[in-house]
């Protein structure tokens, strides 16, 4: 699993990468996940659905990340624009 963050003027940045089924790596992922949420970022998981369709899930804790997720994308919180 990769934790990515969308960065201004850069594109995505890999924050952490690891196998969540391995205890040590899971802890690193979980810690980084919590850090991003504490910074106000939203965690979104792109999900491949049947027949090639795609959807996404907004997750509020590391435990909510669907099993098998390959990436979690941290996005700045959406706000009303001008």
């Amino acid at each position, binding site marked *: 699993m990769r934790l990515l963050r969308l960065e*201004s*003027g850069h*594109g995505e940045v890999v924050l952490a990468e690891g196998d969540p089924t391995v205890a040590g790596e899971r802890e690193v992922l979980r810690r980084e996940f919590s850090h991003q949420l504490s910074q106000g970022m939203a965690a*979104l998981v792109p*999900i491949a659905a049947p027949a090639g369709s795609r959807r996404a899930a907004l997750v509020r804790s590391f435990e909510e990340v669907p099993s098998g997720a390959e990436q979690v*994308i941290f996005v*700045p919180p959406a706000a*009303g624009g*001008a």
Partner: protein
Amino acid sequence: MAAALAVGLLLLAALALVAFAERPGRLRGRLGRPAGQAVGAYDPGRELRAQRRAERLLEACVEREAWEMYRELGFIRVWGGLAGSGRAPAVEYAYLLYPHKPLVAFIPQTAEVIGEYCVSFPAQAGGPLPAADDLLAKWLYLRADEEGLLQRANVHLFGTRHDPARVEADIRRLRAFERSWQARLHRPGREGSVPGGEPTAV
């Protein structure tokens, strides 16, 4: 005569030396950032690389049709998911997602535009997100939490930030794209098909 020739030769030699001394600087300018130059210095390729990186991520996350739509039209159509819920039109509706511009909600059957939903992602130190990342962020939010996104959006009358004529033309271009996409899907050895299967996170 000899003295004039000597002076001329000296002048030519001096000009050649000046040109030679300038060459490494010009070469560095063409090839990239010289060693030791500050990281924050202007890099004309930075935004392009960021956009390419963002486009690769967008392609990996959205449906094949949406990706091709973005490549051909510059925007993405996303179907609304709240129809019939009492919080949205009872009929099928959709959004046009543009980079760094408000979402446009419309009814595909009639091409009637419902309104503009302005959402933004607070700028970080480096300025706005690359265009494809801005689009991806809107797509992810819409697919994950459409209602939450609409609650945060500022709603404007159609024409506030978008040029109505341009949007109407985009809806016509979208219809043409959809016809062409369907034709591609039903063509033998179709290129738009994507294997099905159980939902899996990507």
